[in-house]
């Protein structure tokens, strides 16, 4: 499998930076070429991590939705979540699925969570507060993951530091899938 994706990207980036950009005179074309260079640099950093990123998302969304089903047990809003989690359990293990199928499964999980949040006002106050308490750390982790994913695009100047995507995904040389809290 040669050349590696990273080598393709690196060669393209160099060609645009050193040959194309140097010979462009039109300002708009220069701007566009600069954006392509930025995009290629970003892709170099993330291309080999996309699958594990989705795998981690799958793990965390399933964990969260399982908790929320237990929390909001007697409301009809959780019926589709239960069905989705059952479908997930019946599907091949996440790490054996094609990338596209994993992306699709994760979007189903995200849509279920969004639908539950949309109906939050219907929940009893104590349940809604418990839901909030469970969502808070999930949202914080999600924020860090998303910011790490796009860090190389250079927009992030928020005061708290953005973790490196590599450090966020891997520990002791393997993908880190957090265990459920006791």
């Amino acid at each position: 499998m040669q050349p590696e994706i990273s080598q393709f990207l690196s060669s393209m980036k160099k060609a645009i930076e050193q040959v194309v950009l140097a010979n462009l005179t039109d300002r708009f074309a220069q701007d566009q070429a600069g954006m392509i260079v930025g995009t290629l640099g970003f892709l170099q950093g993330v291309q080999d991590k996309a699958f594990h990123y989705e795998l981690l998302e799958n793990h965390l969304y399933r964990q969260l939705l399982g908790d929320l089903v237990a929390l909001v047990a007697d409301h009809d809003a959780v019926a589709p979540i239960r069905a989705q989690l059952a479908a997930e359990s019946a599907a091949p293990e996440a790490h054996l699925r094609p990338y596209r199928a994993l992306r699709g499964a994760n979007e189903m999980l995200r849509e279920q969570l969004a639908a539950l949040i949309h109906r939050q006002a219907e929940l009893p106050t104590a349940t809604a507060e418990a839901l909030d308490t469970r969502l808070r750390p999930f949202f914080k982790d999600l924020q860090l993951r998303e910011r790490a994913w796009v860090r190389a695009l250079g927009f992030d100047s928020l005061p708290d530091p953005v973790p490196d995507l590599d450090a966020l995904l891997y520990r002791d040389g393997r993908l880190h899938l957090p265990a459920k809290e006791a």
Partner: protein
Amino acid sequence: MAQDTLTQQLRASPTDAWIRDIRQRYPVEPAIDEVMTRKLVNRRKGLEHVSDFSGLHERLTAYLQRATDQPQLSLANLKRLSGGASKEQFTFDLTWKDASNQRVTRPLILRMDPSESVVETHRLREAQILKAMVGQVPVPEVLWVDPEPDALGHPFLIAGFLQGTVMPEGTTKASGVGLMFPEKYRNALGGQFVDHMAGIHTLDWRRHDLSAFAKPAPGTVDGTQWTVALWERVWQEDTFEAHPVMEYAAEWLRRNMPVIDQPVVVHGDYRSGNFMFTPDLRINAILDWELAHLGDHHEDLSWASMTLTGAVADDGTRLASGMIPRERFFERYRELTGFEIDPRTIFYFDVFNAWKLGLICMATSLRAAYGRRTHLDAMMNLLTGLGYVCVATVQDLLAGQGRRL
């Protein structure tokens, strides 16, 4: 890409039933509904609807000949501008007989809707608000507007082309968001920037023809309700992925709408990059009125001074639109308008505006780029990076203030 769920498939290829449902769930102003519904119908046409400007010179000439009843007029130097993430823009020179029957040549600008845009807006609304602002704040003169797509393929507006610049020489912020003005510019432009916002908000809009705008009643949440519904509808129509924080924020915004005592004209995108100034540092035009609506003055105050549209000076001071500290901005605004500035309402609109900018960057920009419908597709993809910063800001605002989140 991204058609793994039924919702994703419907967004990519909207059915009549889905369009009907989304219009019912998110009721917006009638004129806005018109353009948003048109966008969804156009989306079904796929790439066959991508803009084709090859015959523009002839079509534009024919339109102007009809509009002026002057078959002898001539049009020259038609050039497409590179900027304008939400509109296709062209400049040209028109030679025709003016109102005093003198033959004149004048540089003009054509602003036209693309097939699908970063923001879907209505050219008649833009034209009406520009006309209403004449004499109140500096604006380009609107000469012709056509909100229908028949003449040029898309709705458009033609205005006088003004000389000036939107950012200091050598700056590189493509849209002007996050631009830091050097000290000389800050000193000269900062005060004018506040003065013109005050001018916009103090316009007696009831005395002008704003027939394309819904009029919120004083002492209600009407204006904000329509605005939140609009952007929530945009999110639901355009996003590729559901996002729990965006959903949570929408829910919070629906539940916490502040009452508007006196509705004002809200510019909707008042910030650095959206005004023009002359070499002697005088603001000679407030630009990009396409998001203008009637609503809460806090919305503009927040947008112009929030961290996401601002910049940090060398000494660490955060400056509204890269020009003026937020407190000084508010103080001067209060003096000029006499309007109250409620910190809780500012907070509400800080959340709203971060959410709105986030959804523009993460949903609408990506959707437009996916459809290959703009001349800035590469930039539209990169904006996701800013989108995630906006989501983080929304989340931190709500969590930091002890709101539920």
